């Protein structure tokens, strides 16, 4: 009975959700076709869909997406390779913490995109600037989450492991890293989110010739609103897929399995 009712209300939610989307699409379509706005500014949905499919089929959209992903991954992995070990060191050694924490407190409130003009002057237009901006955006969430995670490892676990004769290495790999993992994974996720925002902005302002951010900005010059909307859809899809599939499955494979999800939510 209860199962039936839950199913029923779930079905009703789905139906209402679908109805909203349809209604919004219909309203958009009516406004677009009414000719109240120029069709160049508000293309009908059919045109957007056709542009999207065409650009995927002839490969341009795939190239743009590939360039954007390449830049994100470069900057993001750089941030992880530097932020993760540095965060662990900060959590373990007071001296490192004393040095790095004031600096990161001062740098963190500066939005990464504010550095774009400076970086353009220093490194010229192109990939370097974009990758560095992504790196800057992703570094601090990674660093500070790792630091908090390492510091929040329960001291009883450390002492218990020490009493049972764990050496430094075992302590690190078997206690500290798993203990800090909810925070580390939250940091990875947050870093990726920031990188994804930063890469679009950086490509708009410092883009060279490829990339989803650049194509949106470039399409504005020629009033190709259909291209802009099609790229927006692609950007949304990639963001959604990485957030849900990649990080969702990492979480399921690690902290949920180890029974640590509560700590991550806390």
């Amino acid at each position: 009975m209860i199962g039936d009712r839950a199913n029923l209300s779930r079905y009703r939610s789905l139906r209402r959700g679908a109805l909203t989307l349809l209604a919004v699409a219909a309203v958009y379509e009516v406004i677009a076709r009414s000719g109240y706005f120029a069709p160049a500014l508000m293309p009908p949905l059919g045109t957007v869909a056709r542009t999207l499919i065409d650009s995927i089929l002839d490969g341009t959209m795939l190239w743009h997406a590939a360039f954007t992903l390449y830049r994100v991954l470069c900057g993001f992995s750089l941030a992880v390779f530097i932020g993760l070990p540095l965060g662990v060191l900060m959590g373990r050694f007071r001296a490192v913490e004393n040095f790095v924490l004031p600096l990161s407190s001062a740098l963190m409130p500066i939005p990464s995109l504010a550095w774009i003009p400076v970086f353009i002057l220093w490194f010229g237009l192109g990939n370097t600037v974009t990758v560095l901006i992504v790196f800057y955006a992703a570094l601090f969430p990674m660093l500070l989450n790792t630091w908090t995670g390492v510091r929040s490892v329960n001291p009883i676990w450390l002492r218990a492991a020490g009493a049972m004769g764990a050496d430094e290495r075992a302590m690190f790999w078997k206690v500290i890293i798993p203990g800090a993992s909810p925070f580390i994974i939250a940091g990875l996720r947050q870093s990726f989110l920031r990188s994804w925002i930063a890469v679009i902005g950086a490509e708009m302002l410092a883009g060279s010739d490829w990339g989803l951010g650049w194509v949106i900005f470039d399409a504005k010059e020629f009033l190709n609103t259909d291209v802009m909307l099609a790229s927006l859809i692609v950007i949304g899809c990639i963001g959604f897929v990485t957030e849900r599939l990649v990080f969702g499955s990492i979480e399921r494979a690690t902290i949920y399995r180890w029974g640590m999800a509560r700590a991550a939510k806390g």
Partner: protein
Amino acid sequence: MHDVVDNLAPALLGGDAGPFRRAARNAFPFVVVGAMWEAVAHLGLFPAQFFPSLETVAATFVRLTLNGVLPHHALATLLRLSAGFILAALAGVTIGILMGRSRRAEDILLPLVSIGAPIPGLAYAPLFLLWFGPGDVSAVVLVAFVSAFPIVYNCWTGVKAVKEIWLRSAQAMGADDRRLFSHVILPGALPYILTGLRLGLAQAWRILVAVEMLAAVPWGLGWLIFGAQEFLNTDVMLAGIAVIAVIGLALEKLVFQRLEEFTVVRWGMMS
């Protein structure tokens, strides 16, 4: 929204040492980095125009502050930030609470929110510029639109997280809908709402500087930095970035920590 440590500044180092020791310890890394910067600048590895020494940046900062250019830019940015953020807070809190209270509103609005949220706000910027024209309107609307998402999400979660037993006991004690809302739901959801506002403000701040670069507004810190690039004025850019850092820190420390101390911490809902 799994933010463990979000936001702008973590606490500076405290510890048991006296205030003087603490200040020295916080200042030490800046002295080291500053000295390295000076060394590179004075060695002339890079042209001074691209890599100005700190004295030049400080002199530019003082000059621009005294002749009123920098305060004017900062004021324009702050006005835009507050306009966008207030719009976002009004709309976001209303929509979020509505979604938390009414099943129908939740079913209708959730698909829209979950489609809009994963798209980085800046990606909308060219679209908004086309629709609303370059200038202040696009900038404010875009900032409001982008920072509304975390606010909606957190208000919705907060209202749903109010304990069922509080609602029932208030109802059993004869609270009507209005009192239930103002005495139970609102205080109960407040920690989440404040988190949402804080995330929204941080988001607005991060996006605004870039929007100012794109939207061709006459005044604003983003525009100052971006315009200085044309003339290779690296010192102006760095002075602008310093102001941005100060404003960012102040937003976090002065606005939100105070607000939290006065509400949720005092009511014992958060320590």
